[in-house]
Structures are given as C-alpha cells and as structure tokens.
C-alpha cells in the first residue's frame, strides 16, 4: 500500500536539505567582496597543457591508416627546481639516461615552461621509474604519438601533422594545448574532428592543484580500400618505369597520379600520387635535408587534386555531350551517324583573315568518321569541325562560349570541393579570360586575343586549358549520373551537390557504348586492354595524350570504366611526361580494372602509341 504520509516525510527531508543548501549559498554569496578579491588575488593560476590523442583514421574495412599510441614520458616540474636541488636533478638525469648529451641536459633545465620533457620511458624498467618518481620534481605524463602504419602508401590521403605556425596557434585553445595541427591531407581537412581536447595540469602558486585528463579526438572512417590502394600504386610505378624505358625524354618520368572514384557514392576508393613520402617522418620532426630533397621532387604535392595538366583527348567527351544535346555537328551534318572524311588534316580560313592547316595526330587520316568513331579513334579533325561550326554559328556573340559552359557544368575550371585541402582550380579559357590576361599578364597570350584557333585547341583539350585528375574523374561521373557531387573520402560526411546536369538515360547508354569502343578492337586502347580477352568487351575508357610546351614530353591520360553493363568505378590515371595515353596510362588503368573486377593481375605492358 502506498503511504502518502511517508512521501510527505521524504519531501520534508528534501525540503530541509534544500533549506540547508539555500543557507550555504546565501552565506557564500554575502561574503565580503574584499575578502573574495583577496582570495582570488592570492591565486596565481598557470596551466600546462597535455596534448590529446588525435582521432584515428580508418580505411573502409577498418584497417587503421593513422593511429595514435600513448607513450610515457618523464617530465620535470620546473616549479620544483631551485638553485639548491638543480644539481641533484641534473645528476639523476645524466646517471639514468646516459644517452642524453650534456648539451641536451642543459637544454632541458633551461626551459622556461612549467614542465620540461626529458625522455621517453618506454624502455625503462619499473624499478627505475618508481625510483625517479620518488623525487618530487619528476612527473610521468602519457603523450600521444601519431603513427601511419602504411607509411608512404597513404601519404597524400592522410597528409601529415606539424607544429602550428604563429597564425594557427592563435586559432583556439585546442591548437595551443595540442601544439600539433594537421598540415595537409585529411589531417588538415578534419582537424576539428581529429584533434582532441588537451588535458590540463593546473598550477596554483607553484603547486599542481588539478589534473584534467585529455580527451581523444573523433575517429574518421574513409572509403579508401587499402588493398586497392596498393594495387593502384604498384600499377602506377610500373607505368612510370615503362615510360622511362620506352620514351627518350630530356627529363626522367617521375610524377603521376591515379584515382578510383565510386560512381554511385562519389567516394574515393583509392588515390595515389607519385612521388610520395613517409608521413611518419613528420611525427618527430623532419630533418631539413630530407625535407628539401622531398620538396625538390615535389613529393608533397598531391597531383591527383593539385596537378594541373592539359587534358588532351579525354576532354573530347565535353564536345561529345554538347554535340549530342545541341545537335551541333561538323558543317552540313545533322546527326551523330553522319560521316566526315578525315584526311589527316584540316585547312581552313577564318573570317578574320587567318588561314591555317591543322594536322591530326594520325597523318594518314582516320577515313570515314562519325561521332562514335571520333571517340573510338580519337580523331581530332572531327572535333575541329565541330569547333568550326560553333565559331561560325555564334561568331563573336553571346553563346560563343557554349563549349566552355558545358565544360563548367561538368566541373572544369572549378574546385570539385573534395574533402582534401589545397585543391587546384584549373582553367577553362574563353574570350573574357584572354582579354583579362592581355591586360594583366600579356606574356601569356597573343596580342590578338581570343581566336578561332584557341577554340579548336580547346575542343581537343589543348592550349590554355588545365585540369586536375580529380576534375576529370568527377566530370565523367557527372556525365554518367547527371549529378555533380563533391567527391569525398570521409564516409560519414553529408553529400554536397555542386550542380545537376541534364543527361538522358539514352545518352548515358550511348556514351557508355561509345567509350566501350575505345577498349575494343579498333579503339586507341585496344592493345592495352586486349589481355583482358572477352572482358575487354565490357570495359570502356578514353585515352588522352596532351602536348606540353617546350621539350617536355606529352602528358599521358586514361579515363577507364570498370564495366559497361554495370559501371561502378571511374579510374583516372595521369603520368606527367608519360608520352602517350594509350601506351602508358591505359595499361596502368587496365591493371587497376583487373583488380576491381577480381581478375588475375598482369603487369603493365606498353600499349599502342596514339593520342
């Protein structure tokens, strides 16, 4: 039976305690202000921050690609060091840790901070630790140590950490307390999540009065597949070796990038940039020499998102899309199956009086070419004809930049907003840009400004245009899905839609079919893909060989699609000065597709030299 009287009794008890609490609060709050001020003025609070462990970074099967371990360190509480005992402590340190030089010991005792770090106690036995701790100025503090188990394999994805700069240190208390900040890669873009809340040792008048333990940062789960990443890196390395072996070039081939982008999710499953570095070097501070050597090799650049290259023929899909949706074909043609007769060059006069002959990469010509076979054989003449149509239809009017608009819809000339820092923007040139350059950077353009020839260069991905590999991958993904998403590595971020493009299902199917002809018999990448046998009938792609100014060899591009019937991944491979897309980048991509489709891996073999 419920007894209301007893409840009243309980509540009365509660009431009494509350009255007591009221009284306590009241007497506190009516203390003389002078008395309170005095207490506070006697306080001399100082805080020593203990860095918090950073959150860990995982790949998509929960392999740790950036871990944090705690290591015990011996510290000296400088508030407890006086002129009387300093020598005792110096002797203790020198005696127990003979590996420290006299200079280092001096440095430890000359620090002005509250606590100075002496040495790691990881390999020091328990007895010695206990003995040391019996001296009041010694404290043991666990410090987090970052480790990247896959070393250089994930270097450009995770990035590295380092001491904050003067500007960074003023950002917030977290940065000051941790005294480490992400400098590049995921370490930088997810700094807020990864960095934990530093712990505090609070000193009041030289005594430690409070210890607040540090709190670990948040873990990041990425879409990277570490096994695939390994295959991609191997393949790229083989491709670079192959280029060095087969092309005579004034500069050795060293730089390249490869990306595997998931079509459905917009997530990155692998991303490799070469040359790379071991991010563990930065954990304890990289030597100036190592830094300079790596920096000269451009090892710190993530070429997958920072490298700017003319896209060459991989850009032709933009004109392909434009031709299909606007029905703009070479002059006198009305549909995609009408043929031109490619004789290996195009000679024409412009309204402005200039007359030029443009030579296709295949001097004997491609013969009868329609939109499909222009992609299959990468025929420049066909696309130049489309450029001429645009030039003649629109002239110097509004709408003349229709090709550039289509390119921008696919994300060229803009950041993809991938969740990695320092992404490059790239350039999609047009009349306005040339005009701007003519005034501000006259060395970059001819005084005449934007001409028909510039449009003809642009349509085959040459001239002033520059793109990043991630832009190219994302552009192909946009064409296949109708949605320009910001690619990302963190599986738990919200999807950011850059823009939506209008592509019909029918167009996507035709595009896939035409991309398939590139890796099939008669296509530019057939030789590179022929080892796949029947499977090659279900793969697709586009080769690209972009000319570079000066004596630099061509940039080698390939955009691959793992399957035509069930497309899941877009693979983009770029090798700077790799010579030819179909010869080098195509077989590299083919090896990655072998891995994606679970086929036996065969080594990267030299393909056919085309554009």
């Amino acid at each position, binding site marked *: 039976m*419920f007894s209301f009287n007893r*409840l009243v009794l309980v509540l009365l008890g*509660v009431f009494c305690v509350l009255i007591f*609490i009221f009284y306590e*609060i009241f007497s506190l*709050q009516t203390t003389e*202000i002078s008395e309170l001020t005095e207490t506070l003025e006697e306080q001399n609070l100082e805080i020593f921050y203990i860095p918090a462990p950073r959150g860990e970074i995982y790949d998509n099967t929960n392999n740790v690609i950036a871990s944090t371990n705690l290591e015990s360190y011996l510290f000296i509480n400088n508030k407890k060091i006086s002129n009387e005992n300093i020598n005792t402590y110096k002797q203790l340190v020198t005696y127990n840790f003979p590996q420290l030089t006299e200079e280092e010991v001096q440095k430890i005792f000359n620090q002005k901070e509250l606590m100075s770090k002496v040495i790691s106690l990881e390999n020091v036995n328990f007895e010695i630790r206990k003995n040391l701790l019996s001296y009041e100025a010694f404290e043991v503090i666990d410090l987090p140590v970052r480790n990247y188990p896959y070393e250089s394999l994930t270097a450009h994805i995770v990035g590295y950490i380092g001491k904050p700069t003067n500007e960074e240190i003023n950002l917030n208390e977290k940065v000051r307390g941790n005294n480490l900040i992400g400098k590049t890669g995921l370490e930088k873009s997810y700094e*807020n999540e990864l960095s934990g809340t530093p712990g505090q040792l609070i000193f009041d008048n030289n005594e430690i009065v409070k210890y607040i333990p540090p709190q670990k940062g948040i873990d990041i789960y990425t879409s990277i597949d570490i096994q695939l990443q390994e295959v991609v890196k191997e393949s790229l390395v083989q491709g670079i070796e192959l280029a060095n072996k087969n092309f005579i070039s004034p500069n050795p081939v060293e730089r390249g990038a490869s990306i595997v982008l998931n079509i459905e999710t917009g997530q990155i499953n692998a991303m490799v940039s070469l040359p790379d570095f071991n991010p563990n070097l930065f954990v304890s501070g990289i030597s100036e020499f190592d830094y300079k050597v790596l920096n000269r090799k451009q090892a710190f650049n993530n070429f997958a998102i920072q490298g700017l290259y003319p896209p060459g023929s991989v850009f032709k899909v933009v004109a392909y899309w434009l031709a299909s949706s606007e029905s703009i074909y070479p002059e006198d043609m009305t549909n995609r199956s009408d043929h031109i007769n490619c004789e290996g060059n195009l000679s024409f006069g412009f309204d402005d009086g200039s007359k030029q002959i443009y030579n296709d990469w295949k001097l004997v010509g491609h013969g009868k070419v329609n939109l499909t076979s222009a992609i299959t054989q990468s025929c420049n003449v066909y696309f130049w004809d489309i450029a001429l149509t645009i030039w003649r239809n629109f002239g110097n009017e509004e709408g003349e930049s229709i090709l550039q608009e289509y390119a921008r819809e696919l994300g060229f000339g803009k950041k993809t907003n991938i969740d990695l820092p320092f992404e490059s923007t790239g350039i999609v040139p047009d009349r306005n840009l040339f005009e701007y350059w003519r005034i501000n950077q006259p060395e970059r353009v001819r005084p005449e400004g934007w001409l028909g020839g510039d449009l003809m260069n642009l349509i085959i991905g040459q001239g002033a245009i520059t793109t990043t590999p991630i832009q190219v991958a994302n552009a192909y993904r946009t064409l296949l899905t109708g949605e320009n998403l910001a690619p990302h590595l963190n599986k738990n971020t919200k999807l950011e839609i850059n823009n939506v493009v209008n592509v019909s299902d029918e167009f996507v199917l035709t595009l896939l079919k035409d991309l398939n002809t590139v890796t099939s018999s008669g296509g530019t990448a057939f030789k590179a893909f022929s080892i796949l046998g029947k499977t090659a009938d279900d793969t697709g792609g586009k080769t690209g060989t972009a000319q570079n100014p000066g004596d630099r060899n061509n940039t080698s591009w390939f955009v691959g699609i793992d399957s035509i019937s069930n497309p899941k991944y877009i693979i983009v491979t770029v090798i700077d000065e790799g010579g030819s897309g179909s010869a080098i980048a195509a077989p590299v991509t083919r090896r990655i597709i072998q891995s994606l489709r679970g086929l036996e891996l065969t080594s990267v073999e030299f393909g056919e030299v085309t554009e």
Partner: protein
Amino acid sequence: MINRRITILGPEGTNLYILVQFFLLNFISWFTLFTSSENIEFKTSDVLSRQIIFSIIGLAVFFITTYLSIETIYKFINPLLVVSLLLLVGLRFTTPILGVRRWFDLSNFGIPFFFQPSEFIKIAIVLFLAKSISEKQSILISLTVSLTVLSFIFIQPDLGTAILIGSTIFLMFFVSRINIRSASLILILLIIIFFIFLEIGLLGQYQINRITDFFSGQDFSQQQSRLSIASGGIFGNYFSQNFNYDVFVPVQTTDFIFSLFAKNFGFAGSMILLFLWFLFFLRVSLIIKSSDLEFEKYILSGFIILLSIQIIINLLTVLGLIPLTGMAFPLLSLGGSSILSTSIIFGLINRVFIENNVVL
C-alpha cells in the same frame, strides 16, 4: 483505457504547467551557456548549439513519451529494463574514456555524441519498482534486480549515480508502507554492500582518489566553484556586474554549471531556479494524492525522489560539501543523455497527469 484525441500539444489535455516548466528549464540552460560563450558559431562542437539541438530532440522525446498510454508503458517495463541492463553490460567491452567505462562513443557512427546508458537505467529501475511494489511482488526479486543494476553502475565506476539509484530504491520501498524494520534492513544491506565494494577494490583507483582527495581537503574544482558562486552576490554578475574577477572553474559547463549560473544570476537567480523545481515536486505530489492507481503513485513518487536527490547531490558537490561525484543538474547541465532521460521523465509524468484529467 482512456482514448485521447491527438492535438498539436500531444494528446488532448496536455498539461500546460509541465510543458511550460520544461521550456523554462531548457531556456535557463541555454541562457546560462550563452553567458559563457564568447562568440557563437552554429557547429556541433559549440556548447550552446549542442545544447539547443539536444533540447529540440528532448522536446520531441517529451511528446513521443506523452503519446504512450500508461498501459503501453506498463507492457514495456521488463523489455526496457533488459535492454538498459544489456547496454550497461555492453559498457564493459568499451575502451575507457577519461579512465571510466561510462559512455558509448557514437562518433564511430558519424554522430558526435557520447551515450551514457546509466541515465536511462534510472528510468527503467523506477518503472520496474513501481510495477513490482504496486503488485506486491516478492521483495527478494525486486532487490535482486536492483542490486544487479547497482553493481554494474558501481564497476563503471560511477559512485554518484550508484548512490542516487541506491537511495531512490530505498525511498521507493520506504513510501510503500513497508514496516520500519524491513526498511532499516534494506538500508543496512545497501550500506554493507557499498563497503564490500570498497573493500574488494571494485571501486577502482579513480573513485578511491576522489574519496581520499575529499578527506584531504576540497578538490580544486570545488574550491573554485565555491569562489565562483560567491562572486555572484545577491543579484549576479550578469545584470549588475559588481565584481570584476573571472573565477576559473575547470570544465564548468557540465557538472559544475550551477556555479556558472549562480555567478551570473546570484542568490536571486538560484532562489528562482530551486523554487521552480520545488513547485514542480509539490505539483506532482498533489496528483499522487488524488490518483487512484497505486502504479501511477509509485511512478510519480519514484521520479520526484530521483530528481530531487539528483539535484541535491549535484548542489552538494558544487558547494564542495561532499566528494566529487560527476552528477549532472537535470536540464541545466550540458549533456545529451541527461537531457533526453529527463525529457522522458517529464513525458511520463505528463502522461500520468493526462490520464488523471489534469489540464492545468
């Protein structure tokens, strides 16, 4: 069973007093956190934004709970207890955070939030006891279940919550007109168990430290918190600004938030806050008196006992009168689990009011 028409404010006849009380307490919490924020950014890492998000989720939880009839709740008592207990057991397999196994880190699932199951076992145990006592089930079974729950909280370790739940269990038996001899026996049993835990070292270094620290003088946070409360004066610093020193209290926005509140709103503010709560307890007691159902009486008294003891433990800690406990002030402290569990309690109380046709 009474079928209720559903209106915007929940089933017809949502108790306005409880709703207003709920809003008011949440708002006080926002305002207190606002006074400590320098620049407000809308991010999940900003304390004020976090609290507002939790309050909004709390409001939704309040209404959802209100929709559940007492009959439905009755059916779900045992499953609720089992799930909460399993979560408590699951904590044993987590990696310790700040030296204790008290939270599930949900950031692994993309939610930047630490989930604290002991906040929810409080509700489950009150409901369970309300059912078993009102149905006059064997005291032995109720005690066994209670002690199992208590032991899992002890070993987290979480001394504060263990004492809170222990005393709630005892007082719920106490109000059931159980004879004084049995009541004393239960009390003695609970105290003996506490010392057994202490003796066999199940309390862990962390709690021993807290207890021994206390006997060797107040903890630094508690000293600072006293100074912070004192600096509030009668009307608080926020409105009168009569005191120019900033008192540093480590991690002030969670368990020590009352010291921030008292600093900003002084004795007057503290009076108003505690008066609001006292009024609430009084209002609920009146329903207990008028309700016909034993089960409802036990639910309501269980919850007001729970909340009042929680507030008392928090205030005594903040005032430095008992050792550090790590107990949140309901609806004032920053913390999602605490807000959500208090919202459920308010929703359940609201439901009992509705079923007793109390509108205002």
